[in-house]
């Protein structure tokens, strides 16, 4: 079972889309498709092969290319893919997506496949133990309603228990369902009207949702989610100095790999790393930075530095109090 195989290559994918179209194509259509789906320099490799007929997959009629294929096929699943699917069927989250009957149909079609892994092959040793209840009926139903609403850009009425224990309900448009590997929880990135035609982004835990009801209202104006997220980042990033001892550099680079960051070397053993973040990420980032101890030095921004110093001051005060 090969993973690094030409059958999965980007060029095959581009060609598949060109051949699948089954409509006459100009060389310009082909170029556009390659630019859209290929790599940056794929044009210079693919175009000559089609023009000189080495990849003899099109009939050339003057400047028009017609696919030689008769059917609109999809590549059948390889053993690797079938085994992957079979392994997913044992995952506790699969029931969020598939009904029991569908699971049975898939299981039947995959009867001769061996699962690529078993759940017990993996141990997430530092995962939090209060993960979401994936088999709970209400949870599943809420999940599916949110999934549908997200695709249809439709408002939902969410009845929610806040972290302080109060029940609130508001209308939101689901923007994305966000899964946290560490918490083993889903959160909803949700858009809410903020007045004057503006939308704001909120994050809600799925496990705190008591009820989710579809409304008849749809989001009509386009919203650029990533711009909203980026605009929520502080303009002044977290500025860290990493002292490269105890393998701290590599550990820090991997640890903060999921943040937008920029690193430069400032002397033989010190590196500066800028990390971009927003208010929602602040406490978690502070905790992660503290976990490195003196191997990281926070140089700024002032806000982050103040929070860190406050924690250290409390720590020193507690110990002083005990000694007194």
């Amino acid at each position, binding site marked *: 079972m090969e993973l690094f195989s*030409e059958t999965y290559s980007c060029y095959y994918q581009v060609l598949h889309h060109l051949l699948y179209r089954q409509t006459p194509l100009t060389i310009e259509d082909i170029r556009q498709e390659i630019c859209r789906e290929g790599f940056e320099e794929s044009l210079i490799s693919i175009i000559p092969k089609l023009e000189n007929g080495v990849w003899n997959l099109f009939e050339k009629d003057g400047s028009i290319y017609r696919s030689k294929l008769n059917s609109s096929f999809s590549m059948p699943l390889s053993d690797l893919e079938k085994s*992957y699917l079979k392994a997913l069927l044992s995952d506790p989250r699969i029931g969020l997506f598939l009904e029991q009957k569908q699971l049975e149909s898939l299981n039947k079609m995959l009867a001769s496949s061996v699962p690529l892994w078993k759940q017990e092959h993996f141990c997430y040793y530092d995962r939090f133990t209060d993960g979401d209840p994936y088999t709970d009926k209400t949870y599943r139903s809420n999940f599916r309603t949110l999934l549908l609403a997200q695709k249809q850009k439709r408002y939902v009425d969410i009845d929610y228990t806040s972290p302080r224990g109060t029940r609130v309900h508001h209308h939101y448009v689901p923007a994305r369902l966000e899964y946290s590997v560490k918490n083993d929880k889903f959160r909803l990135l949700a858009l809410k009207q903020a007045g004057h035609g503006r939308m704001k982004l909120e994050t809600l835990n799925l496990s705190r949702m008591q009820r989710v009801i579809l409304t008849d209202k749809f989001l009509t104006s386009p919203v650029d989610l990533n711009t909203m997220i980026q605009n929520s980042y502080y303009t002044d990033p977290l500025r860290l100095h990493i002292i490269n001892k105890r393998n701290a550099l*590599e550990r820090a680079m991997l640890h903060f790999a999921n943040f937008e960051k920029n690193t430069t070397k400032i002397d033989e053993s010190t590196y500066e790393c800028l990390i971009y973040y927003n208010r929602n990420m602040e406490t978690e980032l502070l905790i992660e930075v503290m976990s490195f101890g003196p191997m990281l030095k926070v140089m700024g921004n002032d806000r982050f530095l103040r929070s860190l110093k406050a924690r250290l001051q409390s*720590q*020193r005060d507690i110990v002083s109090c005990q000694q007194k």
Partner: protein
Amino acid sequence: MSDFQELVKSFSKTREYVRDFFVYGFKTRNEFKAKSPRTYDNERRRLESWLAPFVRKDYVSKGSNLSLAIDSNLLDTNPLFQVWKTKSFTDNDIVLHFLILDLLWNGRSLTVEEITDHLLTQYETLFDIQTVRRKCNAYAREGILEKTRLGKRAIFSLDNRLVLWLKSHENALDALAFYQMAGCLGIVGNLLTDQLDYHNQTFRVKHSFFVHTLEEEILLELLSAMNHKKSVILTIKSSKRELTSTTNCVPLQIFISTRSGRRFLCAYAERSRRFTCFRLDTIKSVISLEASQVYEELLEKLNRNRRYLWGVSFEGPERHHLDRLTMTLLVQEPAEHYIVDRLQHEGRGGTVTKIAENKYQYEIEVFDCNEMLPWVRTFTGRIISLECTAKSVEQRFYQDLQKMYQMYQIDEYNLSD
């Protein structure tokens, strides 16, 4: 660089380059000392081509830095999956791929000779029988085609029921869109969504560590050995000393850290006769050997030991069998009860006891308390005391705190409340 090729034959060299660029995106051409400048230029050009939207160039005094700017909060897929889609191929490979699948799509079962004839009559392409046979056999080995025997003749066909079923069930496609981001071997889910022309626009993943997709091939080989309960020979390249060594072991489980994304193989090392964890990104190759006669026994022993593992280390700094760590925390209740919740959810089986008003004690016995320090430090600001039977751990905690007080000029006796 006229001979520049965008695609590559082997993944192993690529794996190291991408990792270096991803992790250490601040090295200039001169700092990549292990490779020749020309190799560096070619690899760099490929990387820029594959990952164009994510490549950032910064100009510094010693040249330009190339790095990958990847913010997982903004992405619906892992951009490094692209690296898996770069395998080179021959002209025959790509033409035969499309023509054979097109020919067999509508349920025909044909011999190699018949396929070769059809390629000529139906598509006006001439191939010799041996080339067509090799391709059909290769696809049968990968499960893309089915090969059956009718007397002495081998017949090839294609089963498209599964792919059509998946295409017609949007909830199955949603599941794949989710798992390609959030699950093990997400690259396979991503290849499937590519194949089924479905792209994730619904899910995001927090705490996702994209770089670890580069280890998926190694992971596949280890899982295969584990499925067959086989011993393996690993080639390991130490990340610190750049030394390469080999080790014989029985692979038992994959340990994953959700905080750092790091993955480890937990195996029984035959030479030292101990459980040992190997970081997946240091494993360069895996060779499967015969099935282990004592696999179940070892697995059971590992399961018994696991309750004493904090992370991946089976031995502490002072070589005691087990060490005990006790941490007392100040928790202002009820406002800070979430700290007690944290101890319970993150404390990996340690006991949490209320010992006085606003005072909680957390206690645990593990093989290596040293591994606990990063977690312990996350409670900075509330730790009344920390005691450990491994005194070096206790000392290191307090020494590190002192260093931090100095670094940030935290004064003593500045009682704020």
